[in-house]
C-alpha cells in the first residue's frame, strides 16, 4: 500500500574503527547505553515520528543484527502493511547482482522495494548515531521548502568542522555548497547523515549515478554534489539537541558516559520519546551487602557485590566482592572477579576478568599514550593479570601476565 514516507536505514557498514567490538557484529548491533544497541535509536525515532515502514540494509556480519531486528515487534514495527524489512544484497536474473558498492548503490539496488510502497519521500538514515529526533518535523520542513533534498545539520565548533561533511547555506538555509571533511571549512554546519529526498528526484539521480563509471556510488561523495551542481533545491534542516557519532572507541565510550549525565542533552528516562529495545529476559538486578554503586546504570540480571562508579553495566554482569569498576562499560555477561579493578575500559560480551587482575588505568597527567582499554568478547583475563591503558585484548591473557 502507498506510504507517504519510507525510511531506509544503512546498516551494512563494518565500523572498522571499533576494531574488536565489530569483529562479530555489524556496527548498528553494538550494545549501547545499558539496554540498547545503536540501531534502537534510529528505529525508535522512526516509530515515534510516525514512520511505520523501514528498510534495514545489511551486508557486513548481518546474523546478529537480523536476529535482533526479528519481526520488529519491540519497536511496534511488526505490521501487516509496512513494518521493518531486512534488505541484504541479492542475486538477480542471469547471476547479476553485487554487494552494495556504496550507500547510494545500496538504495539503487532496492528501488524495487521502495516501489512496493510508492512513497512520496524517502528518509535515509544510518546506524551509527545516538540521538532523539522527530523526523516528522524534518519532513514538514522539506515540504515547506519544496526541496528535492533536505539534509539535517548540526552546528559544530569550527575547530572540529573538518571531521564532518560541511554545508554552506544562504539566508534561507538553502545549501549552495558541500565540502566533505574539508581542511578549511567554510561553515560550521555539519551533516548528520540524515537525508530526506523527494523519491521521484532521488530515483532519477540514483539511475544516473549508476550509469557513471567513475562514481563511488555514495550519497555524500556523489549524489549530493550531483544534485547541487544541477541546481536542485537543497534545504538544510537545523537540528538542536544531542547527537553523537559512535564510530570510534573513544566516541562510543564518551557517548555511554553521556547517558549518565542528566545535563548531556539526551534523556533516556523521558517517556514522551522512548527508545525501545529487544530486552533479554532477566530478573531485577541485585546489589549485595557491601555493594557501592554511584553515578552508574545497572540493569536486569546483574549481581553487584563490589564497587561500581561512573559506569554502564549491561544485563547479567557480575561484579564480585572487592572488585572495583570505574568509568567503564561492561557488556552483557561480563564477570569481574573478586578484587579485580577495571578502569576506563570497554569490556565486551561474556568476558571474564580474573581475580585481582587489573584492566586499564585512569588518565595520567601526560595523556599522549593513554587511551580506553578494550577487552573483546569471550576473552578471559587471568587472575592477577595486568592489562595496561590503551590495550586491545583479543586473545586470552594468562594469570599474572602483562599484556
Amino acid at each position, binding site marked *: 500500500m502507498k506510504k507517504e514516507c519510507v525510511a531506509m536505514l544503512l546498516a551494512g557498514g563494518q565500523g572498522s574503527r571499533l576494531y574488536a567490538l565489530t569483529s562479530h557484529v555489524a556496527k548498528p548491533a553494538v550494545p549501547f547505553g545499558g539496554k540498547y544497541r545503536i540501531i534502537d535509536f534510529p528505529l525508535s525515532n522512526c516509530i515515534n515520528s510516525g514512520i511505520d515502514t523501514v528498510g534495514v540494509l545489511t551486508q557486513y556480519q548481518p546474523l546478529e543484527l537480523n536476529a535482533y531486528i526479528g519481526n520488529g515487534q519491540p519497536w511496534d514495527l511488526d505490521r501487516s502493511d509496512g513494518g521493518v524489512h531486512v534488505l541484504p544484497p541479492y542475486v538477480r536474473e542471469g547471476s547479476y547482482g553485487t554487494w552494495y558498492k556504496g550507500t547510494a548503490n545500496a538504495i539503487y539496488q532496492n528501488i524495487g522495494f521502495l516501489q512496493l510502497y510508492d512513497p512520496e519521500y524517502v528518509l535515509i538514515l544510518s546506524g551509527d548515531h545516538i540521538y532523539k529526533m522527530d523526523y516528522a518535523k524534518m519532513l514538514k520542513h522539506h515540504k515547506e521548502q519544496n526541496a528535492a533534498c533536505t539534509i539535517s545539520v548540526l552546528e559544530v565548533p569550527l575547530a572540529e568542522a573538518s571531521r564532518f561533511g560541511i554545508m554552506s547555506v544562504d539566508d534561507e538555509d538553502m545549501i549552495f555548497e558541500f565540502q566533505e571533511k574539508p581542511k578549511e571549512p567554510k561553515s560550521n554546519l555539519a551533516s548528520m547523515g540524515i537525508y530526506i529526498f523527494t523519491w521521484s528526484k532521488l530515483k532519477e539521480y540514483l539511475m544516473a549515478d549508476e550509469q557513471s563509471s567513475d562514481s563511488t556510488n555514495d550519497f555524500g561523495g556523489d549524489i549530493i554534489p550531483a544534485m547541487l551542481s544541477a541546481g536542485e533545491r537543497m534545504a538544510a534542516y537545523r537540528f538542536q539537541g544531542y547527537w553523537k557519532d559512535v564510530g570510534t572507541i573513544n566516541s562510543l565510550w564518551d557517548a555511554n558516559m553521556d547517558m549518565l549525565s542528566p545535563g548531556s542533552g539526551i534523556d533516556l*528516562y523521558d517517556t514522551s520519546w522512548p527508545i525501545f529495545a529487544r530486552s533479554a529476559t532477566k530478573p*531485577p538486578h*541485585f*546489589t549485595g*551487602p557491601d555493594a557501592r*554503586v*554511584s553515578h552508574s546504570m545497572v540493569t536486569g540480571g546483574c549481581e553487584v557485590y563490589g564497587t561500581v562508579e561512573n559506569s554502564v553495566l549491561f544485563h547479567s554482569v557480575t561484579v564480585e566482592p572487592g572488585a572495583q569498576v570505574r568509568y567503564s562499560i561492561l557488556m552483557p555477561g561480563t564477570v569481574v572477579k573478586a578484587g579485580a579493578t577495571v578502569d576506563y575500559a570497554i569490556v565486551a560480551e561474556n568476558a571474564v576478568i580474573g581475580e585481582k587482575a587489573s584492566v586499564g588505568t585512569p588518565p595520567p597527567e601526560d595523556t599522549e599514550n593513554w587511551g580506553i582499554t578494550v577487552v573483546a568478547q569471550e576473552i578471559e583475563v587471568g587472575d592477577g593479570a595486568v592489562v595496561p591503558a590503551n590495550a586491545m585484548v583479543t586473545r586470552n591473557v594468562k594469570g599474572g601476565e602483562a599484556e
Partner: protein
Amino acid sequence: MMNKLHGIIFAYRSNADLRELTQNRNTCSVPYGGRYRIIDFMLSNYVNAGIADVGVIVHANYQSLLDHVGSGKDWDLSRKHGGLRILPPFGYANKQRGGVCRGRMDALEGVYSYLKNIRQEHVVLAGGDLAVNLPLRDIYAQHIASGADITAVCTRAPKGDPKSSVYFSLGADGRVADVSVHPFSPTGCESLEVYILSKSLLLSLVDHCAAHNIPSFSQGVLLSMVHSLKIMPYVYDGYAARLQSVASYYARSMELLDPKVRDALFVPERPIKTKDQSNPSTYYGSEGETERSLVADGCIIEGSVKNSILFRGVRVEAGAKVENCILMQGTAVQAGAVLKYTITDKNVRVNPGRMLMGHETYPLAIAKGEIV
C-alpha cells in the same frame, strides 16, 4: 511430546488477607519479585515446558490481569491457532447460583465447551497465584511413566496456611493414600495444587461434579476418589511461594534477597517472562546508596536503599531512606522521606520529609495511587 499437554490456569482467587494489594486486582496479578505479576510464573512454567495452548480462567476483578497478559505475546502465546485464551465467567450466566464461583470444579464446569475442544491428550491444572519454577517436563514424563490417573505436585516443605491447604499422606506403594483438606494440624506433603490428568478423565470428572453439585476439586476428586483413582505424587522441594496475606506477601518477597532463593526461582534455562515495558536501565546518582536490594529497571536512585525490593520506575530522591520495603512500580519517595517495613502499591507518592514505619510482622501497606 509437550504438544500433548494443555495448560489451564485458575486465575480467579482473591485473598482478602492481602488487603490493599488486592483492592484493584485479584491475587494472580499482584506484583511480585520486582518486575513480575504472580501469574507470570505459571504462564512461564507452561511455556518453558513447550505447552502451546493455555486457558486462563478468570472470574472477578480481572481487569488488571487482562491488562497485564494482553494477547499473550510476551510469553509467545499470541498464536494463529491455540495460544492464550482468557476464559471469562460467561458460562455461569444462566446458572441459578448467581454467577458465584465456589471452586475449581465450578470454574471448569463454566468452561466445559472450551475443555471439550482441547486439542491435546493431557491437561495440567494449576493456580495462577503460585510463584514457583517447576520442571514441568519432568513432571509430565513421570505422569506418563507411572501410568497415574492423576499426578499431584506436592512439597515436603510447608508453604501455605494449613487452613487453606491440602495435604497428602503417601502410601508404601508410592501412591497418594489419603488426603486431608484444610486441617488444623497438617501432616504429610502439602499440595501445590498442580495436577496432570488426561483430557477424557478431566471431562468425566467435571461432568460428575456438576451432576452432584460438588464445586471443589479437593472434595469432588481428591477426597472421594483417592482409592478409585491412581493418584501419584510428584514431590518438588524447590522454592515455592504462596501469597495469602500481607504478612506472607512481605515474608515471601524478602526471601528473594537470598541468592539461593533467586537461583531456585530464576533458572536461566527456564526464564520467567513478563510484560515488556521498555524501561531504560536503573540510574544510581552520585549520592545514591544501595545495599542488599533487588532493583528492577527504570529506577532513579539518589537516596539510600537497604534490604528492599524496588519495582520498575521507582524514584528515591536525595536524602530519602528506604529500608526493608517493597516499592511497586512508579512509587516516588521524595526528598528526605523515610520508609521502613512499608509496602507501597503502584504509583504511590510519599511527599518530602514523611516518615512511614511498619513492622516486620505487620508491614504497612499503602494502596495504589495514594499520596502520603
